[in-house]
């Protein structure tokens, strides 16, 4: 298991998140919710790596040709 680091967040936001979990369920703690949201936010960034797949690049080339840019 990866180690843990301490991050400070605003108190009102913490309370809001705590209430959210108590009312809606789904998470055991604010910490779990925060970790989950961070992972989700950064997942697309990791997946896209250096940009586009070959297939996507071809799609964009075709569109740019149709638009007359290239």
């Amino acid at each position, binding site marked *: 298991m990866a180690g843990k680091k301490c991050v400070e967040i605003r108190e009102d936001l913490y309370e809001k998140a705590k209430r959210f979990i108590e009312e809606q369920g789904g998470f055991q703690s604010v910490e779990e919710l925060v970790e989950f949201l961070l992972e*989700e*936010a*950064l*997942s*697309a*960034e990791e*997946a*896209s790596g*250096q*940009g*586009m797949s070959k297939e*996507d*690049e071809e*799609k*964009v*080339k075709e*569109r*740019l*040709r*149709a*638009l*007359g*840019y*290239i």
Partner: protein
Amino acid sequence: MPRRVFILGLDSMPPRVLYEGMDGGGFQYLRSLVDESRRYLLRSCHPPITVPAWMVMYTGKTPGELGIYGFRHRRPGEFGYYIVNSRYVRAETLWDWAGRHGLRAGVYGVPPTYPPKPVHGFMVTDFTTPGPDKPYTFPPWLRRELEQATGPTIFDIVYRSHDKSRVARDLFHMLENHQRQVEYLATRKQWDIFAYVEISVDRAHHAFWKYFDKTHPRYEEHPEYSSVIPRLYRSIDQWFEKLHKQLPRDTVIVIASDHGIKAMKGAFTINQWLAEQGYLRLRVDPRGLKPGTDLREDMIDWQHTTAWAWGGYYSRVFINLRGREKHGAVEPKYYEETLKQLRRDIERIRGPDGEQWKNMAYRPEELYPEVNGDPPDLMVYLDDLNWRPAGTLGWQSNYLPENDRGPDDAVHDWIGVFAVYDPEGTIGRGDAGTIDIHRVRGLLEEIILSKK
């Protein structure tokens, strides 16, 4: 407290429309804002094209520093090309800067922002997004929220079509989609700066300019098509008036474009010309090919070729340099001389009736303080952009009345707009001269950090 700034980006908006009233009655609210604004003539970059121009504006770096000279680029020694995306923009953008200052930024439709990068706020990417099935927002879950609230995102339309009624329908459909989304984001999300680029303005200009601009050499009054551009302006005007009334009263409004637009006089077949001049040796008869055939690697007799070119809104010319290209024929010691000669010959190209053209051929290092990435050997503008360079083959004449890629009425122009409306009156009003597009970023920072 920093100033809150909303930037309405109207791709390809020229000063004679926004400042001088050539809008067919479309801009009424925006006109009143512009009249009360500090108005700059915005000098676009080399090349004056959507990519790289918006990123030059938002990073404050020239295309040479960014290493972005258009949508496509060629690695040395390769014939094919790659397309730049947001990952190629390594300089700090205005929204990165805002995040660093604790400010929240909204970014919508700024090219190229796909794939989306993390931003202290939110981002919806631009028309270079491969499709609506891709992760095109930051944070990623914004996509679903936006689609549920406003319908599927429309990134672009196909405007090079003779079915102009369909093009007009698609254009308004896309514009309304963007307007719904931007209004949703601007009124429900937190932001200190909001950068929005509306691409439908550029698409309308390209598709309908000859029905709108009475000075167009092929101007045509049309009962339906002549009203498309004014109606599009009107739609933006009314929508923005409604949005503006919902924004905090002290919001600074910036109206900007990335370049201007003007009538296309025609297209010039740059590779056919290079072949005639002996710079490009082809294994095929270019005039025997189907009109509009792309130049392929196997069509070129590389041992006897000095240069070849790409078309587009400007032309990029490459020297077949030994040691750099796969079948390089030009010895490095003759590189300078070859460029000089080619440049002279390009500058001497004349129009179809022998008229003098204002051609410009630049070496990238003459234009920028730094030249990064994969630049061409020469950057060429024909007749001050009035003639579009066509890279394709198969044409009986080197002068084409139309674009080689399908119907298109317009080419880009050097001068765009940059108008700053400050409801608090701390930013002076009136004409403020010319600003280079790479200086805009600094000005925006000053405005954001200025005191009310």
